[in-house]
C-alpha cells in the first residue's frame, strides 16, 4: 500500500487479544529519513539499498534498483540484493552484538567478561603492544588481514600495522579464495568480467559454483542468457540448486574435474574442433621444449650469455625463431605446431625439441573419454557432448571459489582454462572464466603513500610512480604497464607488512606436524613438506615476506572482523592449544560476539554498516563503488575502526614515550617512531575523520581516472554508487586487461586478444607448461588429473563444502531472520544410500570423524547428494556445535608444496596472490549415528 492510500477500517487488521492494530502494522513501515546502505557480506557484491529510519533507529531497508542500464540489448543489473542484505537491519540489535569494550576475567573461552571503558581497553592494548615492540620488535605484533567490513574497516588497522612495522597475514592466504590455477596459467588471478557479460555467452558452465546460493544478485543473468538461447551446464558432484535450472547436469566425482576437462580437450583436439589461431597467438602451445630436460628451450641454451627468459618457436619459413616478448602478434611468423625438430646448443650438441602442443597431445593420450569416465564418473558420451557443445561457441565458466579449495584445485583450474584456450574462449564478450573479481580503487591504494592530503600530493605520488615505471621500462622495454605495476608492487611488498600465512602457520600455529604427514599429502612428493619449505626459504623465494620468522613467536594478535576460530582449518587444536598460549594478548574488533571474540582477551565493539560511512571492496562483477551511510548512530559504545585505531595509535605513542621507547628498529632495521604514531596516523590532524579519508580516496580515484570526474562523498551520498570509468593504475585493476566504457559490458582480457598485449607470465603467453624443476618432479608441468590426497585418513566418505544460501561465512549466524529460513543449526547433508547403510535417519545426530578430529551435528538426508559425498555448508560458528567443535576439526588444512615455488617468472608473491593456501575440500571422513542421549540437542 502506498503512503497516500486510504487505510482500511482498523478492525480489519486488528489482532484480537494482542492489542495490535492494522495501524500498528502500517507504522512499522513509516520513516523520517532515507539513506544509502550496502553490506559487508563477503559475497562479492555491493548492492545499493535504501535504508529507512525513524526515531534514530533503522526501520527497514529495500533494494534500490537504481542502476542505469549499460549496454543496449543487455539486461541491467537491477535490482541487486538478496535476503541477506534485506535482513541486515535485524543484526543491528542482534543478541550477539557487542556494545561495550569487554575484558576477559576468567580463563580464555570461559565466557566471563567485565565491561570496561574505552580508555581502559586502549591502555591495556597499548601496554601489551609497547612491551612487545620493546622486547621482541614489531614482527611479534600480528594482524589478520581482512576484506570483511568494507574498505573503511580495513584501512585503519592496516595503517597502524604499517606504522608499527607489524605483520599483516595475507587475507587470501587465510581464506583461500585464490584461483591458483588461473594464476599459473595467466600470471594473475583476478580475471573476471562484469556479470552482465554472462548474458552474452552461448554456453555457461557452472563449474565449481552454485550461483543460485552464492550469487543471488547476479543470478538473473543466467536465466536471461537462457532466454536468449544459451545452454547452461552445471558440473558438480551434487545436484545443487543451480543444477535445477540448467539444461544439462553433469555429475562429476569430487576432485576429478581435471580428468573431465582434459578428456574434453582430447576430444576437441582429436576431432579438430580447436581454434588454431587463438592457440597460436595467445598460448604457449607453440613454444619449444627440450626433450632431454623437459625445460623450455631458452636463448641461454643456444648461446653463451643468452637470455634466460627468451623462448622459441619453429617458424615454417625461418625455422628456429625467438618468440616475441613484447606482443602476442606473430606478424609474418607462421609457427609450426607439430615437431620434433633438432637444434644445436651453445656447446655444439644437438638436441630434439618439441612443441608444448606435441607434449600436450601425448599427455592427453590417457584421457580418452572412456578412460576419463572411469575416473570422473561422467559417461564418455556426455564428455563428448560437452566437448562438442563448447567448440565453436562463446563459452563462459562461472567458477566461484570452490575449485581453489581442493588440494589439486590448481590442476582442475588449469585444465578448465585449457578447455577455454583450445576453443578460443576468452577476451571476447560472453567468454572467459569468472572467479575472483578485484577492481583497483586507485585512491585507496594511494592512501598509504601520501604524506598529506590533497590533489598535489596525489600528483606527486603518481608522478613518482610514473618515474619508477619509466626506469623499469628502460630495463625491460617490452614490459606492459601491467607487468611494471606488478614489479612495483613486488618492491613495495618486500618492505611492507603483508606476509603469506603459510610460514606463520608452519612455525607458530602447529601446522608443521600436520603438513609433514606424507599420507595426507601428494605421493609424488620426494621429501617431507618441511624440507620443501626450508628449501624454498633457503633459495630466497620468499625473501622478506616469511614473517614473523621462526624465531619470533607472535605475542599480540589483532583480528578485525575476521574469525579464525570459525575459519581456520585444523580446528581448535591449532589455535586454542598451539597458537593461543604464545599470545600475550588477543584483541578482537568486531560488532558481534564471534567464535574468536569468545576466545579473546579484549573485545572492542565496532560500528556496523548503517551506523557509519563505508564503501565496499570494489569488484569487477558490478564495477561500481557502493556507498553505505550512517543512518543511525552506533549502538552502545561501538566505534568505527578509524576511531578505534587512531585512538589506539595515540595511546601507544603515549605509552611508548612513558617507557622511553620513542624509537625502535624493526626486523628490516628500519627505524620506527613510536612517539609519533598518533600524528603519523592522522597526518598531524590533517585527516580529520573517516569521511574525509573516504573523500580523499574517491577524489584521488577520480583524478587517476578510476572514477568519473567530480566524484566525491557528496556524490556518493546523492547517487548511492558510482560506476567505474577505468580499472586504474595498479594491479589488480590492470590485470583485468580491459577498457571500461560507459555503453558496454566489460569483458576481461580484451587487451590480450584485441591488442595482443602479452600476459604477465614467464613466457608472456597463457602458460600451460610450467617447466619449474619442482613441477617436473611432480609430473605437473602440464595440467593433469591427480586424485585428492587422503586428507584425514582412509575413510569412505568425501567431505565437501560450499557457501550456504542464507549466509556467507558466519556473519549472518546471529541474524534471527536468516536463521529462521532454515533449521538454524549446522547440518551434515548426506545421501539416502549412505545414511541407510549407517542406520542414520533424517534429523538424527551423527558424528563425523577421521584421523584428524571429529564433530557432531544433525543429519539431513537427501537424494541430491551422491553416495560417497557428505556436505557441511560453510559458516557455522564452532559454538553452534557440541563442545564448540565444528567441521574444521576434521580438516587438516593441507597446503600444496608446489605453491612454495618462487622466483619463477609469475610464480612470486604479491599481496592477495600466489602463495600456498589451505585445502578443505575432499577430506575423507566416516559418519556414524550418535547413540541416544549424546550429541546435539534437538
Amino acid at each position, binding site marked *: 500500500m502506498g503512503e497516500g492510500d486510504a487505510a482500511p477500517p482498523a478492525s480489519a487488521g486488528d489482532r484480537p487479544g494482542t492489542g495490535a492494530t492494522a495501524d500498528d502494522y502500517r507504522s512499522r513501515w513509516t520513516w523520517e529519513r532515507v539513506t544509502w546502505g550496502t553490506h559487508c557480506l563477503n559475497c562479492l557484491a555491493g548492492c545499493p539499498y535504501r535504508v529507512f529510519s525513524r526515531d534514530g533507529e533503522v526501520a527497514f531497508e529495500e533494494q534500490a534498483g537504481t542502476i542505469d542500464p549499460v549496454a543496449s540489448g543487455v539486461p541491467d543489473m537491477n535490482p541487486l540484493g538478496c535476503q541477506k542484505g534485506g535482513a541486515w537491519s535485524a543484526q543491528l540489535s542482534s543478541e550477539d552484538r557487542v556494545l561495550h569494550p569487554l575484558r576477559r576475567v576468567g580463563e580464555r573461552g570461559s565466557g566471563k567478561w567485565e565491561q570496561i571503558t574505552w580508555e581502559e581497553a586502549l591502555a591495556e592494548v597499548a601496554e601489551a603492544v609497547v612491551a612487545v615492540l620493546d622486547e621482541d620488535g614489531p614482527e611479534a605484533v600480528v594482524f589478520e588481514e581482512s576484506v570483511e567490513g568494507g574498505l573503511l574497516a580495513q584501512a585503519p588497522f592496516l595503517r597502524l600495522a604499517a606504522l608499527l612495522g607489524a605483520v599483516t597475514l595475507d587475507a587470501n592466504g587465510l581464506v583461500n579464495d585464490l584461483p591458483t590455477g588461473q594464476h599459473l596459467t595467466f600470471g594473475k588471478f583476478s580475471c573476471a568480467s562484469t556479470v552482465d557479460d554472462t548474458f552474452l555467452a552461448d554456453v555457461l558452465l557452472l563449474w565449481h559454483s552454485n550461483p543460485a546460493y552464492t550469487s543471488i544478485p547476479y543470478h538473473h543473468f543466467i536465466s536471461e542468457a537462457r532466454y536468449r538461447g544459451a545452454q547452461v551446464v552445471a558440473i558438480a558432484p551434487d545436484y545443487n540448486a543451480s543444477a535445477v535450472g540448467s539444461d544439462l547436469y553433469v555429475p562429476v566425482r569430487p576432485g576429478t574435474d581435471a580428468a573431465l576437462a582434459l578428456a574434453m580437450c582430447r576430444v576437441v583436439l582429436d576431432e579438430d574442433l580447436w581454434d588454431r589461431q587463438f592457440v597460436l597467438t595467445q598460448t604457449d602451445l607453440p613454444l619449444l621444449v627440450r626433450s632431454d630436460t623437459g625445460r623450455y628451450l631458452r636463448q641461454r641454451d643456444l648461446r653463451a650469455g643468452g637470455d634466460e627468459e627468451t623462448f622459441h618457436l619453429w617458424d615454417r619459413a625461418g625455422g628456429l625463431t625467438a618468440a616475441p616478448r613484447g606482443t602476442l602478434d606473430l606478424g609474418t611468423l607462421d609457427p609450426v605446431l607439430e615437431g620434433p625438430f633438432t637444434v644445436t646448443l651453445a656447446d655444439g650438441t644437438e638436441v630434439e625439441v618439441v612443441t608444448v602442443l606435441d607434449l600436450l597431445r601425448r599427455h592427453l593420450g590417457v584421457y580418452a573419454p572412456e578412460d576419463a569416465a572411469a575416473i570422473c564418473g561422467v559417461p564418455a558420451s556426455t564428455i563428448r557432448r560437452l566437448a562438442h557443445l563448447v567448440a565453436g561457441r562463446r563459452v563462459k565458466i562461472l567458477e566461484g571459489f570452490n575449485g581453489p579449495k581442493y588440494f589439486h584445485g590448481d590442476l582442475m583450474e588449469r585444465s578448465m582454462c585449457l578447455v577455454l584456450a583450445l576453443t578460443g574462449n576468452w577476451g571476447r564478450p560472453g567468454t572467459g572464466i569468472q572467479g575472483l573479481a578485484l577492481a583497483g580503487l586507485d585512491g585507496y591504494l594511494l592512501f598509504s603513500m601520501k604524506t*598529506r*592530503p*590533497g*590533489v*598535489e600530493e*596525489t*600528483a606527486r605520488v*603518481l*608522478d613518482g610512480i610514473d618515474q619508477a615505471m619509466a626506469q623499469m621500462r628502460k630495463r625491460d622495454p617490452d614490459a606492459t604497464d601491467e607487468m611494471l605495476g606488478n614489479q612495483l608492487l613486488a618492491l613495495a611488498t618486500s618492505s611492507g607488512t603483508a606476509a603469506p600465512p603459510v610460514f606463520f602457520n608452519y612455525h607458530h600455529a602447529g601446522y608443521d606436524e600436520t603438513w609433514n604427514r606424507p599420507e595426507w599429502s601428494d605421493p609424488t612428493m620426494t621429501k617431507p613438506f618441511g624440507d620443501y619449505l626450508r628449501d624454498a626459504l633457503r633459495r630466497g623465494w620468499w625473501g622478506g615476506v616469511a614473517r614473523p620468522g621462526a624465531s619470533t613467536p607472535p605475542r599480540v594478535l589483532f583480528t578485525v572482523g575476521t574469525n579464525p576460530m570459525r575459519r581456520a582449518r585444523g580446528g581448535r587444536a591449532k589455535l586454542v592449544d598451539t597458537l593461543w598460549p604464545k599470545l600475550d594478548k588477543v584483541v578482537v574488533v568486531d560488532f558481534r560476539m564471534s567464535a574468536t571474540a569468545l576466545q579473546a582477551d579484549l573485545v572492542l565493539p565496532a560500528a556496523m554498516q548503517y551506523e557509519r560511512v563505508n564503501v565496499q571492496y570494489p569488484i569487477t562483477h558490478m564495477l561500481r563503488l557502493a556507498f553505505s551511510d550512517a543512518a543511525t548512530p552506533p549502538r552502545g559504545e561501538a566505534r568505527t575502526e578509524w576511531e578505534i585505531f587512531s585512538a589506539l595509535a595515540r595511546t601507544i605513542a603515549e605509552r611508548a614515550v612513558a617507557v622511553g621507547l620513542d624509537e625502535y628498529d624493526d626486523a628490516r632495521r628500519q627505524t620506527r617512531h613510536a612517539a609519533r604514531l598518533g600524528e603519523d596516523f592522522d597526518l598531524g590532524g*590533517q585527516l580529520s575523520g573517516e569521511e*574525509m579519508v573516504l*573523500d*580523499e580516496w574517491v*577524489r584521488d580515484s577520480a*583524478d587517476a581516472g578510476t572514477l568519473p*570526474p*567530480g566524484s*566525491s*562523498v*557528496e556524490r556518493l551520498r546523492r547517487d548511492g554508487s558510482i560506476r567505474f570509468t577505468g580499472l586504474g593504475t595498479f594491479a589488480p585493476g590492470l590485470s583485468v586487461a580491459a577498457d571500461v566504457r560507459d555503453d558496454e559490458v566489460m569483458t576481461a582480457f580484451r587487451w590480450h586478444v584485441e591488442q595482443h598485449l602479452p600476459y604477465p607470465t614467464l613466457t608472456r603467453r597463457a602458460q600451460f607448461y610450467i617447466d619449474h624443476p619442482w613441477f617436473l618432479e611432480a609430473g605437473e608441468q602440464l595440467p593433469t588429473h591427480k586424485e585428492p590426497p587422503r586428507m584425514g585418513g582412509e575413510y569412505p566418505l568425501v567431505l565437501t563444502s560450499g557457501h550456504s544460501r542464507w549466509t556467507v561465512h558466519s556473519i549472518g549466524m546471529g541474524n534471527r531472520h536468516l536463521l529462521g529460513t532454515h533449521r538454524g543449526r549446522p547440518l551434515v547433508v548426506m545421501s539416502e544410500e549412505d545414511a541407510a547403510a549407517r542406520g542414520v535417519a533424517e534429523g538424527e545426530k551423527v558424528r563425523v570423524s577421521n584421523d584428524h578430529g571429529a564433530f557432531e551435528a544433525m543429519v539431513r538426508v537427501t537424494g541430491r547428494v551422491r553416495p560417497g559425498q557428505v556436505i557441511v555448508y560453510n559458516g557455522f560458528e564452532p559454538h553452534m556445535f557440541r563442545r564448540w567443535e565444528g567441521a574444521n576439526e576434521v580438516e587438516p588444512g593441507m597446503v600444496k608444496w608446489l605453491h612454495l615455488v618462487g622466483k619463477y617468472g609469475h610464480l612470486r608473491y604479491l599481496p592477495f596472490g600466489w602463495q600456498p593456501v589451505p585445502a578443505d575440500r575432499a577430506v575423507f571422513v566416516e559418519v556414524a549415528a550418535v547413540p541416544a542421549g549424546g550429541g546435539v540437542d534437538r
Partner: protein
Amino acid sequence: MFTYSLQGLELSAAEAGPIEVEENETTARSAVYQFFGGWFATAPADLFDQAAEGKWVAGLTEAASLLPFGFAIGPVEVPAGADAASFAADHERVLGGGALLGGGGRADREAEIAAVRREYEYFGLAASDAAPRPADHLATELDFLQYLCFREAATPSPRLATSFRRAQRDFLDAHVLDWVPGLVASAGRGAGPLVGWTLDQLAAFVSADRAYVAERLGG
C-alpha cells in the same frame, strides 16, 4: 606578470605568499575570476566609485585581454543622477545586500558549505574562518576558480595541470552553474544598469569558460 591573491580563502598547505607567472590564456581566466570575485566582495560604496571612474570596464578588459575565447565586454552606463547611495540601494534590493550571494538558496545550506569547504581543502586551500563571507558565497567560489586557474598556469606538472583544469569544470558544474544562472535570471530582471551589467557579464563569462574548459578536457 600575473599575481593572484585570495580574499576569502587561505592556503592550507602549498605555497604561501604571492606567486608570479607569465601571463597567458589561463592566467587571463584567473584574472577574470579575480575581477568578479573582487566585485562581489567589495562594499557597494567603493564599487560605485570604481564604476564612475570607468574602472569596471578597464579592469575587466585588461583581465580578459588574453582570454582564449570570445568574451564581449559591454559598456557600463552610469545613469544620470546616480550616486553611491542609489547604487547601494539597488545592490541591496537586487542582491539582498549580499545575502542572496551565499548558498544559492539551497535547502540544505549546511551540506553545501561542507561540500565546498571540502573542495577547497582537497585543492590545498581552507575557507578562512576570519573571512567576512561564508564558504559558499559567490565571491568565495569565484575566488576558488581564480585559484584553480592560476594553479593550472603555475604548476610544472602536466598531471596536476589537468587535475586543476578538471576541477574548474567540475566546480563550475556542481557549485556555480547550478545556481548562478538562476540568480542572474531572477535578480537581474529588476536590477539597475550597474548591477545588471555585472550579473550579465558574469553569466556570460562562466558559461563561456565552462565550454572552453570542457573542450580542452575533451568533453
